[in-house]
């Protein structure tokens, strides 16, 4: 993985000291809260419901075991012993004190980490496919480009006061595990007809109150032109994006109002002026960064390992976990293991300091010390030998981290919701907990099959409800929590925006309503292998509506 050189290390140290100064000026009265707020946000520090919240950047979702141990240390020393992994592959601490944050950041800097641009109206921490570098059929490794984008975007002098936040995601395969087209810029690494590598720019996607699937604005940008094309895109946005209405300030609104074609034309015009300047990426820098992502020292192993196959058959629980929680690896004899942060009844994405330490130790023992965070709020050990899986599983089980539910209905994305968040209208985590208890039987889960259930506590859609196969959106009605259900969304390569099922449900009704939707799917599916989303696309929303609202009076929502 990437390691800081003297420049990066100096920079992060300087940024930490700058923030220390900003906090000191706030406490000394040189900065009002109004002036301090954007400064603390640009460094990931929010003031939430009960306390400050610090969001720490995990660029493109990659962590070393050493960094994970530091995250555990911070959870113990500055928080209440846990952290929350987010849909942007970052980690949030819910309880730090303002005056502790500069020291906390200094600890992070020791392991080449920071909280730069994890919030605020600037270019946010870049995300990527969590299987980057280990998945077969990858055109190129998104981490290389994620790191280049991280450096380019860090304290960009021109783009630090944008109309609104700006999120970039990078993928390198046809399969989209990073919800690429829900980003302000989604980058897909592609090859052109000449076989050269470059980027397809999907610009102007987003969620929030106006969900939009990012349109293809330019099919191929050569790799040396990546930064100039990004610069041109951001310049057009910075000058022309709306600033009069916060809800219309994202780039998606600009792209929609101009049309993707006209927007692309304006970017092209700007880009042609700057593409052959110092923004052109030197091959030497790409090679330097790429060298950090060289594959670890894989052993030569057979693809088929008889003892492992026998273990899977002999131990049904182990077999189930392997089927649900491992992904195919580009190297024979290896696999990428997902550690579910969604045990039954847990807060999705939360991990305790002790669990973080265990995951760090296990990654040292079994995965070359590499760890990834997924946008579905799970952890991945990307390089595990198949012959080690049983030992790994046994050790994960001992600490409650072997839930075999990746991709199933209990693998829920949930934002922090009204339990923590200042913007939320309704709680998300307790709803997720109730659902995960309702769907706790592993056999039932695998019978239901792949089902993406996403919960947001407000229309900002941090919990990706628009693109869940089933989405739940918390709304406020006269101070009480209600939940609206959407069906048919997807954030993968078959991306779609969910449709609203009907009137919202109360906190006590929502679990039953979701179960009815799922039971309806079981009745309707043409065969057990037909996924929920495919059944929905085949039959439409009406049969679900009938079952949920139909004649059954007790299920009719009380409000609206």
């Amino acid at each position, binding site marked *: 993985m990437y390691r800081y050189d003297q420049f990066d290390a100096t920079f992060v140290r300087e940024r930490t000291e700058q923030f220390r100064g900003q906090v000191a000026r706030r406490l000394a009265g040189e900065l009002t809260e109004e002036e301090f707020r954007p400064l603390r946000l640009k460094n990931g520090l929010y003031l939430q419901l009960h306390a400050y919240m610090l969001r720490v950047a995990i660029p493109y979702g990659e962590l070393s075991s050493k960094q994970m141990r530091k995250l555990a240390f911070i959870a113990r020393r500055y928080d209440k*012993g846990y952290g929350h992994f987010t849909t942007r592959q970052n980690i949030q601490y819910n309880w730090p*004190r303002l005056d502790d944050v500069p020291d906390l950041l200094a600890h992070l800097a020791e392991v080449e980490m920071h909280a730069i641009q994890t919030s605020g109206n600037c270019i946010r921490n870049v995300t990527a496919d969590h299987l980057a570098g280990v998945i077969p059929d990858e055109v190129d490794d998104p981490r290389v480009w994620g790191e280049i984008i991280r450096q380019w975007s860090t304290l960009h002098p021109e783009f630090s006061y944008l109309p609104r936040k700006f999120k970039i995601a990078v993928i390198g395969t046809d399969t989209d595990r990073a919800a690429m087209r829900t980003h302000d810029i989604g980058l897909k690494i592609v090859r052109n007809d000449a076989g050269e590598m470059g980027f397809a720019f999907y610009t102007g996607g987003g969620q929030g109150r106006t969900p939009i699937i990012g349109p293809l604005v330019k099919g191929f940008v050569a790799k040396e032109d990546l930064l100039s094309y990004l610069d041109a895109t951001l310049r057009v946005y910075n000058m022309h994006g709306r600033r009069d209405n916060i809800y219309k300030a994202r780039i998606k609104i600009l792209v929609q109002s101009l049309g993707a074609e006209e927007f692309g034309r304006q970017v092209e015009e700007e880009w042609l002026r700057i593409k052959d300047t110092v923004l052109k990426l030197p091959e030497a820098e790409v090679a330097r960064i790429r060298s950090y992502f060289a594959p670890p020292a894989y052993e030569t192993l057979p693809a088929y390992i008889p003892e492992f196959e026998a273990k899977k058959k002999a131990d049904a629980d182990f077999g189930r976990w392997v089927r649900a929680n491992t992904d195919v690896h580009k190297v024979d004899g290896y696999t990428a293991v997902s550690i579910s942060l969604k045990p039954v009844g847990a807060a999705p994405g939360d991990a305790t300091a002790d669990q973080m330490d265990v995951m760090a130790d296990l990654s040292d023992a079994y995965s070359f010390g590499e760890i990834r965070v997924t946008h579905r709020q799970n952890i991945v050990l990307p390089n595990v030998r198949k012959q080690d899986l049983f030992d790994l599983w046994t050790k994960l089980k001992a600490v409650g981290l072997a839930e075999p539910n990746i991709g199933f209905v209990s693998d829920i994305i949930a934002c922090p919701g009204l339990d923590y968040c200042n913007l939320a209208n309704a709680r998300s985590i307790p709803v997720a907990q109730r659902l995960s208890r309702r769907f706790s039987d592993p056999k039932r889960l695998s019978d239901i099959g792949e089902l993406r259930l996403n919960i947001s506590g407000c229309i900002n859609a941090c919990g990706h409800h628009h693109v869940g196969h089933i989405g739940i959106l918390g709304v406020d009605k006269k101070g009480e929590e209600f939940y609206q259900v959407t069906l048919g969304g997807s954030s993968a390569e078959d991306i779609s925006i969910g449709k609203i099922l009907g009137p919202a449900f109360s906190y006590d009704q929502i679990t039953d309503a979701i179960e009815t939707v799922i039971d309806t799917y079981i009745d309707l599916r043409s065969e057990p292998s037909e996924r929920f989303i495919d059944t929905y696309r085949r039959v439409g929303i009406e049969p679900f509506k009938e079952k949920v609202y139909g004649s059954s009076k007790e299920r009719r929502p009380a409000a609206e």
Partner: protein
Amino acid sequence: MANDRPLNQMVTAQWLLGGESIYWVAGKGWSDSFAEGTLYVDQPAADAALAEVQEFVKQRVVVGPYLIEVEVDKDGPKPTSARERIRAAHNATFDIDHGSWTARIAD
């Protein structure tokens, strides 16, 4: 329906350093306890209290004071909105005992 009840309000804010929610106790100062907060039954009194506490913002003791609606029943006062009820409890509503994974497995 809210209009039928008498309007009760309280002044709340957050400590600048820790961010915890706090409630204004007239004549005394800030309390972490919602139950101790002073109830204002008419708008001018509530507005006057909100104006009075601006001094604590200037002195960099608290952040963002505002008025919340409170309803009073036989058990005493409680915030009208779910949001404010969660704030007043100073914690998430679910069991966040992450302290031991054995507890989590047993859950």
